[in-house]
């Protein structure tokens, strides 16, 4: 198989795989349940790195069939990576507003312009 990118032999890849698996487990061990959804969405964006693979496929095609597959892969992977980060950021925007216990009136107005208003 064509080693298109910076790469290694199968054993060093397996080493990387095993180490990354341990890191993946450890690094999120203490997540509070409030952040489960944003974290899931964030990891969803990170596996959008598949775009790199899709680019390598499309960038080295020869036949038409492979071209179609590669093109589709790049489109799908771009959806994953772009959509993933944007959605996660939108979720987390909400947390930014919430952090200070007392929200300034300016921030409150900006976050909810339509339904804000002084009760008579």
């Amino acid at each position, binding site marked *: 198989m064509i080693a*298109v990118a910076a*790469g290694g032999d199968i054993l060093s890849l397996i080493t*990387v795989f095993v180490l990354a698996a341990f890191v993946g487990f450890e690094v999120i061990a203490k997540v509070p349940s409030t952040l489960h959804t944003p974290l*899931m969405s964030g990891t969803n964006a990170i596996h959008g790195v598949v775009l790199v*693979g899709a*680019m390598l496929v499309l960038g080295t095609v020869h036949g038409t069939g492979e071209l179609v597959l590669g093109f589709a892969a790049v489109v799908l992977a771009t*959806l994953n990576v772009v959509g993933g980060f944007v959605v996660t950021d939108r979720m987390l925007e909400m947390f930014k507003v919430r952090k200070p216990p007392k929200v300034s009136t300016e921030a409150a107005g900006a976050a909810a312009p339509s339904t804000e208003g002084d009760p008579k």
Partner: protein
Amino acid sequence: MSLGTGIRLADLIAAICFILALRGLTGPKTARYGNLLGAVGMALAIAITFATNGLHHFLLIAVAMLVGAAIAVPAARLVKMTAMPQMVAAFNGVGGGAAALIALSKFLTAPTGSLAVYQVVEVLLGVVIGCVSFSGSCIAFAKLQELMTGRAITYPGQQVWNAIVGVGILGLAITLCVSSTSWLIVIVLGLALIFGVAFVLPIGGADVPVLISLLNSFTGLAVAASGFVLHSVVLVVAGTLVGASGTLLTQKMSQAMGRSLPNILFSAFGSVITATGGAEGDTTRSVRSASAEDVAILLAYANKVIIVPGYGLAVAQAQHTIRELADLLESRGVEVIYAIHPVAGRMPGHMNVLLAEANVPYEQLKEMDEANPEFQSADVALVVGANDVVNPAAKNNPGSPIYGMPILAVDEARNIVFMKRSMRPGFAGIDNELLFDPKTTMLFGDAKDSLTKVVAAVKAL
């Protein structure tokens, strides 16, 4: 420094960014920064890929990326906060699909018989896991988007059929490893797609979010497999990180619901009878419904009100109105707190996000363990568009599909007000005994309309 070394260094930096991004995402203060760091690492990994030796078709790649971005940005920007879960499912599914296409493409273009067994295994893992994640995510999307029933779908012999498909995939995979009949991969691909659908169909109701998390980690593994196929370290690192952390996150999510993962994945099998058995005869029973004015009086003269927000509140976009009501009640000296079930809304943490959007003060939000002792001293529990998370069947009906799920102890409050559109059961499709309780008052209608009326009525008092 050669170009190859530069690329490897960039990949290393990207990998570090991804790890720090994950760590950042586990704390409320660092979460946003974590996500941005992940995006920076991603941008670096993608940009450096353009410098890969022997890469062609730059224009084609750029066009494909533009097409993808042109669809993704508006979709992710315009989607309502309530529809976030299915959006995550969709973006996850296409990622799995991309991983499968990469592996497939590399397999089809390799000269017949040139692949070692381990290389065929890499391709097969990428194709099978990627396809399962793709078709599974499609069904999860359809369920959450209500394009199909959200309930568990079961049929006779389900396990047998799934086993046959699974064995079929395995058999063909082994054949592919030992022979060079490469067209068999297309059948494997088809079977994997079918398997993904069959895997998701029997999972229904509130369990779908946990399922999406599981499919998310599947996609991570598929990406790692395609990284093996392409000998790309950054793909292996990022894919494995997501695969591992996603698996742990799935565990944690099911724990938050008080369920075990196998229970969520396989409990629907054979539960057809118990799930429908609870519904009989309920249609003839009477409930107490009231006007907005009645509810307003009940609330305004209470000492302590606990608001239980649910998906109905989110759908009606009533989070701002509920805050207005809470402010109004507080100005009359009523103590108001929000009791947030871990899976209120559709996903863990979903409701916190929605209420934060409406600037509900952080200290009024109580997690379930904190909130449950409060119900005994509450005059009114105001349940807005929630159902399954307050259903006592989870505590006292072992036959119920949600049995064992921790619930909010709404039944301990002195009065219960349900704001619901109808008597229809909740997302899990089970009737709620609490609706027929003598101390329960129903206020039918859209959550936002009802709340607006109640707010007006409280003001008029």
